[in-house]
């Protein structure tokens, strides 16, 4: 017997994980880039 499952629960979970993880990765890459370039510019100014 096949279980009755709401497919939308799986769809929403997939989108939340996929989009959320991608957004965190974009933010992390931009923040680390800005921080590293600021540090490089500070060592140049010293």
């Amino acid at each position, binding site marked *: 017997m*096949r*279980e009755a*499952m709401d*497919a*939308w629960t*799986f*769809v929403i*979970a*997939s*989108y939340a*994980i*996929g*989009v959320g*993880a*991608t957004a965190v*990765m*974009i933010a992390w*890459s*931009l923040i*680390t*880039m800005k*921080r*590293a*370039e600021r*540090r*490089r510019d*500070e*060592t*140049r100014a*010293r």
Partner: protein
Amino acid sequence: MHGFANPARFLRIARWLMPLCMGVGIVLTAVALGWGLFVVPPERLQGETVRILFLHVPAAWLGMAGWMGIAAASFTEVVWRHPLAAIAARACAVPGALFTAICLVTGSLWGRPAWGTWWVWDGRLTSMLVLLFLYFGWLALARASEGVEGGAARAPAIFGLVGAVNIPIIHYSVIWWKVQHQPPSITMGKSAIDGAFLWPLLAATLGFTLIFAGVVLARMRALLASQQAEARLRRKAMAEVEF
């Protein structure tokens, strides 16, 4: 190609290319996922779960593309010793690992309602899991060989080249072995997918690929800036010791 290995020239190009890739990629991905989520009709056999494939397929492609990037950069590092090659390999690793993990998780979430199980140990799923473990191993090796001089510094590059053998195994696993996973739906010049699903899938794949390229460029800029700052601080410390 060799000209782009110059860090100053790379930075000049990356300064405008990174925001362009990131911006266009985010807009295209948002449109494609909205299209897949709200416009595309339910599929005859898969029903609503077909919408998961607009995330799963691009993630699978980018998981493999990330390792192909590591392998290409490793080859360039070993053969030509380009100064940017090791940085490019390191920049590909984290986004590649993340998309491999997204592929495995979304595949599992698709498999539960479609196949009735979260996981099967078939050739495609297992070789994709092996790819995730290869990424973890590569990242640990790259971290361990930071600041190491000589031949040991090239250990991640050798591992990157050897690990590339898993990419054709993933690709051909559905052809070589009897597996639960379906065979390729899109081959060169041919598609078994209806246009209603194909176009948003291609748009999502292109959008995520541009995001991946933007993240790799941002990571390369960060790693290059850190290296330059470290080198400058080391030079200053040496000069202070001499006086």
